[in-house]
Structures are given as C-alpha cells and as structure tokens.
C-alpha cells in the first residue's frame, strides 16, 4: 500500500486529473480552445482566469499558514484595494493606481503583522478585526455604490491578453515565480518553516521570528491587493459588498488541499496554487454541468472531502488494512 501513499504533490495532481476528466464528461467541449480577438477562448482558460484571485491569495496565505498563522482579512483587503483602484482609475495613470492599491494592501498586511508579531495576538482574532472592518472601509471608499471606470489600462489588467493568455493568469504566474524565487532561492523559506515549526526554538537558534511573521503578513496583504485590483478590473468596477467575499476561505482551502498543515512548518507554493486550480476546475465544472444551483455547495463539499481523504496518511493506512483483510479472507 506504500505505493499509494503519495509522494508530495501526487495526490493533488491525481485529484486535478480526475476532476478534469469529470468536467470532460459533464461538458464534452471542455478541452476545446480557439482564438477569439487574439485571445485563447475555452473552458480551460476560464479555469485559469477565474482561478487567479484565489491562486494569488493562496500564495500569500500559504506563507502565513507556514508560520502557524492564518489571515482571514484577505477578502476584505481585496475589496479595499479594488475600491481604491476603481476610484483612482479614471483620474490617474496606471502606475499611480497600482501603487496606491498595492500600498494599501501593504499597510493592511503591516497592521495584521503588527497585531500578531508585535502584540502577540492570536492570528485568527487579529485578522478577524480587519476582515470585519475592511469591508466597511471599502464601503466608505465607494460610498456604498459600485464604482465603475473605463480607464483602458486598468481594464487591460483584467481583460487583456499576453501571447493569447489572459493578463491575470500571466500576473499570477509571475507572482508564483517571484515568490518562489525569493523564498526558495534564499534561506527565507527555511526560516519561515522554522518559525512555524517551533517559534521558540527558532528564536533561540537566532531566527528573527518576529520579522518573519511581519514579512509574511505584508506579502499576504500585497497578494490580496493584486487579487483585488484584478477582480475590479475584470468587472470594470469595484463592488465593495461582494468583491472577495468568502474568498479567504477558498484561499485557506487551496493551501490545505496543497498539503500545507494549518499547524505550520513545511509548505509548498506550487501545490497551494494547484489547490486553487483544483477548486476552480470544480467550480467551472459545476457551472457547466447544468445541475440546479442548489447542488453547487454540496458537490463542492463532497469533492473537497474526497481530495483531503486522498491525502490523509491515516485514511490511506485504513484503506490498506481493509485491502489486506480482504486478501487474507480470499
């Protein structure tokens, strides 16, 4: 049975392949791709494009979770930064818009990091504050309306394409490579894992755990800001009530599906993004299937349960024992 016990990533890749196959069954044209106005068009592209916000969130979230933290505020930060970007889009150039939105995300991250690393609050409580307050801040910025804009630069960020791929996908890919290069190209990733594994021991061993924790929350805020800007650019407007709503849960789910433990320590960026893609592949499949919407959440829950069971060593162990028992009986 040890053969079934996954090497890292095997369970996730298997799950993705199975869900893709199911999607192909419910929707025969799932893998069809064509060019439409110089941009690839098809359900696979939808999966990548719609999966971008959660993928970006999971990039920050996985680092936070690796330090044994959690960031519930990312959805609200998306709303704030989307609102800022939309409000400035028609009066300022793209660099100013991006700087303001990402700067706001950075400040939000600093705030969370300050509460957790400096004041020693529990992450779930500390980030809950901004989760609740953040949406209110976003509503104040938009004055409760959906702020629309027509700035072609910002719209391009959501709907444009580079070499046939949607811009958001390219951005997410770039962020994955950048984050990977920074944390895995240096000892940073190891230090983050050490902080999450045992903060006290790491501190004694000379790891600046506070700085690590502060840094991961800041990065999480920046990733959320980028996701918020993309979400606003996608619909050419900032919807403070709904932008990023409940996406923090999807981001956490993506990280967990990616095999990173909520108890901190070892993490994988690529698998977290893969987790985000698994979630979106499932969502797109549900939309294509034509089932009544009442089933959406149920299907999602069952699939998530199956993916997590697939990863659980205990479950694999149980399955192994059952198989052995059956063999001895026969």
């Amino acid at each position, binding site marked *: 049975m040890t053969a079934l016990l996954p090497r890292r990533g095997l369970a996730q890749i298997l799950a993705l392949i199975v869900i893709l196959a199911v999607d192909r069954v419910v929707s025969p044209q799932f893998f069809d791709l064509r060019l439409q106005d110089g941009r690839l068009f098809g359900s696979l592209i939808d999966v990548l494009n719609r999966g971008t916000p959660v993928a970006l969130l999971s990039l920050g979230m996985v680092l936070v979770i690796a330090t044994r933290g959690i960031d519930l505020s990312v959805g609200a930060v998306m709303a704030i930064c989307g609102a800022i970007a939309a409000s400035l889009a028609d009066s300022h150039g793209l660099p100013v818009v991006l700087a303001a939105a990402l700067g706001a995300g950075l400040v939000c991250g600093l705030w969370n990091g300050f509460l957790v690393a400096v004041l020693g609050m529990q992450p779930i409580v500390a980030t809950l504050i901004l989760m609740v307050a953040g949406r209110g801040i976003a509503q104040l910025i938009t*004055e*409760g309306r959906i702020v629309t804009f027509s700035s072609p630069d910002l719209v391009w960020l959501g709907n444009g394409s580079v070499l046939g791929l949607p811009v958001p996908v390219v951005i997410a890919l770039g962020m994955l490579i950048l984050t990977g290069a920074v944390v895995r190209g240096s000892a940073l990733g190891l230090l983050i894992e050490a902080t999450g594994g045992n903060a006290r021991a790491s501190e004694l061993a000379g790891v600046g755990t506070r700085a690590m924790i502060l840094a991961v929350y800041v990065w999480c805020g920046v990733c959320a800001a980028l996701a918020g800007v993309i979400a606003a650019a996608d*619909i050419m407007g900032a919807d403070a009530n709904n932008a990023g709503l409940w996406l923090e849960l999807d981001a956490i789910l993506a990280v967990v599906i990616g095999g990173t433990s909520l108890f901190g320590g070892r993490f994988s960026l690529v698998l977290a993004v893969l987790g985000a893609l698994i979630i979106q592949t499932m969502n797109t499949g549900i939309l294509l299937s034509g089932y009544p919407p009442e089933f959406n959440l149920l299907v999602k829950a069952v699939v998530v349960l199956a993916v997590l069971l697939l990863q659980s060593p205990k479950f694999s162990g149980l399955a192994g024992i059952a198989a052995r028992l059956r063999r001895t009986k026969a």
Partner: protein
Amino acid sequence: MTPKALFAASAMAALLLALPASAGQLTIGFSQIGSESGWRAAETSVSKQEAAKRQVNLKIADAQQKQENQIKAIRSFIAQNVDAIFLAPVVSTGWDSVLKEAKEAKIPVVLLDRDIDPSGKELYLTAVTSDSVHEGAVAGEWLAKTVGEKACNVVELQGTVGASVAANRKKGFDTAVAKHPNLKVVRSQTGDFTRAKGKEVMESFIKAEGGGKNICAVYAHNDDMMVGAIQAMKEAGLKPGKEILTVSIDAVPDIFKAMAAGEANATVELTPNMAGPALDAIAAFKDKGTVPPKWIQTESKLYTAADDPQKIYDSKKGLGY
C-alpha cells in the same frame, strides 16, 4: 446610506426641526434599514424628494441593519407624537409589541418595500411593496412578445439561492414563458446577484451552448448580474442586445448605460419610490379617513431602448444607486 448622505440627512432633519411646523403640515418618521445596497440608498433619496414635493416633514432614522435600532427609532417617533410612521422592516418577525405601542398611540404605520409576518396584519395600516413574482412575469412577457413565434433558448442567471426574491422572480418568469412553448429555459444557475459571478456564470453558459450560438436570450434576476453577463458576451465575440436578447430586473443606472450603447434590451423597474404611494395613502387617511387597501402594489415598469435610456441614466445616477 453613505456617511455624507447621513450627515446631510441629519442636518436636514435638524433644520426641519428648528422650523416651526406650519399648520396642517404632516410629520412622518421613517425607520430605514441602512446601507445594504445601492437601491436602498436610492429609496432614501427618493423618499426625501417625495416628502419635499408634498411638504411633509420626513424624519429618517438609519437603523444600520439592526432590528433593535428600528424598534428604538419607532419608540422615539411615538414619543415625539408624529403623524405617521414608515417602516422598512429589516426582518419579518418580532414587531408585534412595538407596533402595538404605535397602535395604542393611534399612530398609523405603513410598511415600505417589505412585509412582516402575517400575525401582525392588524397592526399596520398598509404595506407598499413590489410584487417580485409579477416582476418576473413582466420580464417573461416582454421576451415572449419580442421573440414572437420563433424558437428561443433562454439562459437564466438566478439570484442568491434561498433568497425569496430570487425564487419569486424565477417563478413569475417561468409561469409567463410556460404559455409559449417556443421559449425554453435551457440553463439556469445562480450568479449570487453580483457582477463578478454573473460574468463567470455567463462565460460557462456560452461555452456549454456552442460558443453562445444556441442562446437566443438571457434573463437575469437583477441588472448587476446582467452587466457582468454583457461583458462576458462581448469578450466571447458575441453582440448582446442584437444577437442575444437581454432582460433583467431592478432598473439600476448602469443597465441604462448598456441600453444606450445598444448592449441591453429591457429591464423591469423595482421602483425606489415606495414613499410616494405611502405618503398619498397617509394624506387621504388623515384628511378624509379613507382606509387604504392592506397592500399597495408598486408598478413594475418595463424599460426598453425606446425609453431614451441615456436620459434615464442621467436622472438615476445621482440617486445613490
């Protein structure tokens, strides 16, 4: 309500309080829910306009989506001995005791936009609400009339699963198109009343229906989802409003913008003017003792490109939607 508008409202209320009430001028307290949506903000601004038109002193209390705040506001209106109370109830139950207090003080209560639990029927004078089943039916009838005899595959963007207004708008539309066998709802999925989800769901509808070739019309339970769906159609190289008909509900300003651009066909208005009919009913009740019917249904008006959408957009965009 936005902070600015809140400030303006309280400033206005203070100003009105400072003025000596002229003889015969009605004073009405309005317990409004709070800033839950753009439509709610528009309702508040239209209520102020309607009251000003009739020279009624309207005192608006923002409940910030909390029932206890609404109950407090009603008690304070009773203490001030207003002529009538308007209530947009945030929930449907738990009003019995405070409405009894109003009844004992002989202050008539009018419900706006939402009804309360049937047990409290004798506790209020009348309810001014829209019929969301009828809204769906108006949308369906427009589509049936526009399509005529030819076969038409419709895709539907539903509101949030479990929301009564979504269920009603679906029911009304389904009943209307059921009379026309050439109309068929081929796909129906929830877009959660939001632009982003409306766009995402429409993208999948387009893929599932042969790149959109098999879709003849889109019906959305609100305009916001339709705005998202219109973007999805455009990005797929389709021409909404021409190749694919659109009909949605609410009549928010942005759908008129799309209509003016020829990208949307029709919308059914959920009027933000609930206060106007309520004010008229109260005036008649006070002057002549006319008891209004228990339910005053607001008009579900249909707007199409023939109604000068640009002008409507200009008139609506300042209302706070």
